[in-house]
């Protein structure tokens, strides 16, 4: 009970310094400043986007790329990670290539993806999926590798089919590891989504940010930044909560 209360309280209390900073900014800030417009001007700054009916679609585009990218990364990371972790020899054969691909900076993918797919949502997805896959793939590989042999023998001796072995034993046993990877991958995916949008100006919140910056609309930049921050905070909060509660159920430790 006590622990629950603390967990619920922490994010709010933890935000206090930020709120204090914004209040001070508001009090001492100069509304005419081209670099540091106070928070009250931010809403006016994004008002034109709202009026032009551009803000919600932009948030929608960004969310769509993020959610789809994360979903694909999760499926890909979980499946490849499980397969690689299941066999020592596959693991050894693939590890160097995987390490190389992992070290590839996400930004360097943008030109290639843009070249092949053009300035499209698919291009954004490709750039987001690749880096977001690694944390999930790696945690899943380790979890599969360290899975107790007895847990794998159990469905065999009870005569479960391969399908049931996968759905009833392997999937639940690896779910906490996958979610742990998602917890790391989700903020990463969001950052990369915004980054790609800023760099390529292909629709979304990032593109709007880039355009506002190019037009010296500093209040609008801060307004959009706040929205991106709230989005990131919400994503982080959701995946953390999901990960904690699911792994508690699956691992059986309260």
């Amino acid at each position, binding site marked *: 009970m006590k622990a629950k209360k603390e967990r619920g309280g922490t994010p709010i209390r933890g935000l206090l310094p930020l709120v204090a900073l914004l209040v001070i900014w508001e009090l001492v800030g100069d509304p005419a400043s081209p670099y540091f417009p106070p928070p009250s001007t931010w809403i006016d700054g994004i008002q034109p986007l709202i009026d032009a009916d551009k803000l919600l679609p932009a948030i929608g585009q960004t969310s769509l790329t993020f959610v789809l990218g994360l979903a694909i990364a999760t499926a890909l990371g979980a499946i490849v990670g499980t397969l690689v972790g299941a066999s020592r020899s596959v693991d050894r054969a693939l590890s160097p290539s995987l390490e190389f691909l992992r070290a590839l900076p996400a930004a360097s993918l943008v030109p290639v993806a843009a070249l092949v797919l053009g300035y499209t949502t698919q291009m954004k997805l490709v750039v987001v999926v690749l880096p977001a896959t690694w944390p999930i793939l790696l945690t899943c590989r380790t979890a599969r590798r360290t899975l107790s042999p*007895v847990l794998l*023998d*159990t469905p*065999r*001796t*009870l*005569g479960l089919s391969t399908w049931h072995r996968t759905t009833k034993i392997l999937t*639940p046993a690896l779910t906490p590891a996958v979610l742990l990877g998602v917890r790391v991958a989700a903020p990463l995916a969001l950052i990369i989504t915004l980054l790609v949008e800023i760099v390529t100006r292909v629709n979304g919140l990032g593109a709007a940010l880039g355009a506002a910056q190019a037009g010296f609309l500093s209040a609008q930049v801060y307004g959009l930044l706040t929205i991106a921050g709230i989005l990131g905070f919400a994503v982080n909060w959701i995946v953390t909560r999901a990960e904690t509660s699911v792994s508690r159920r699956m691992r059986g430790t309260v």
Partner: protein
Amino acid sequence: MTPTISCTDLEVTLPGASGAVNILAGVNLSVAKAEFVSILGTSGSGKTTLLRVLGGLLPATGGEVRCDGTPIQGPPDGVVTVFQDYAHSLLPWRTVRRNVALGIEARLGRAERDERVDEALTMVGLLERADEYPWRLSGGMQQRVQIARALATRPRVLLMDEPFGALDAMTKASLQDQLQQVQSLTETTIVFVTHDVEEAVYLSDRLVVLNGSPADIGLTLDIPLPRPRHQISTKERADYLELRHRVYEALGHTVGEPARG
């Protein structure tokens, strides 16, 4: 008559830190229907390895393993292993009831499944804990859940790896007697790994001792004690004590000398 489960010239080699290690060599064992055979041996002698091969969970490196006369590839139908490591064998995300149902839920209807689960849980005395999660139970209770899960499938052959090792003396005695009862009712063939000499003599029709490295069967001993056996009176019989004596000797103990490790 073809034995229910048998191995001839069995050889098992497993990878070790410095190359392959020969764990079992030249093991011959044949278990008849409804027979109760115990495998004894010191820790690390290869008992678990032998049981895994008999259960089709580990392929033999050499020799042959047969179940009802046919060479086995993978766990044969109706041959169920109860693992030594019960903690990793139960699914922490399932309740006791759903753990016990794991082996039968795909092939039985709900009513029959529930009936079998209740029956198996009653046999091991855990019916009132059916809706608990296994990690809330003691080690001994968890092992009983694992036994119930095997019993619920109504196995022809039960391969048990030190199933009562984690239990206190009282629970152990009562489960030994329940196991005997189940076996006499169902005519299940049982291969039972243990390092408890008394337990092996008390339960078995025959016991074998694994020793050496690589291990083979050093001693085979028939236990012609009358059935049903009784915890007190059977263990007071002169022939029981004599058999016990011989097993201890085969394991390397000498009278008048304290046991070494």
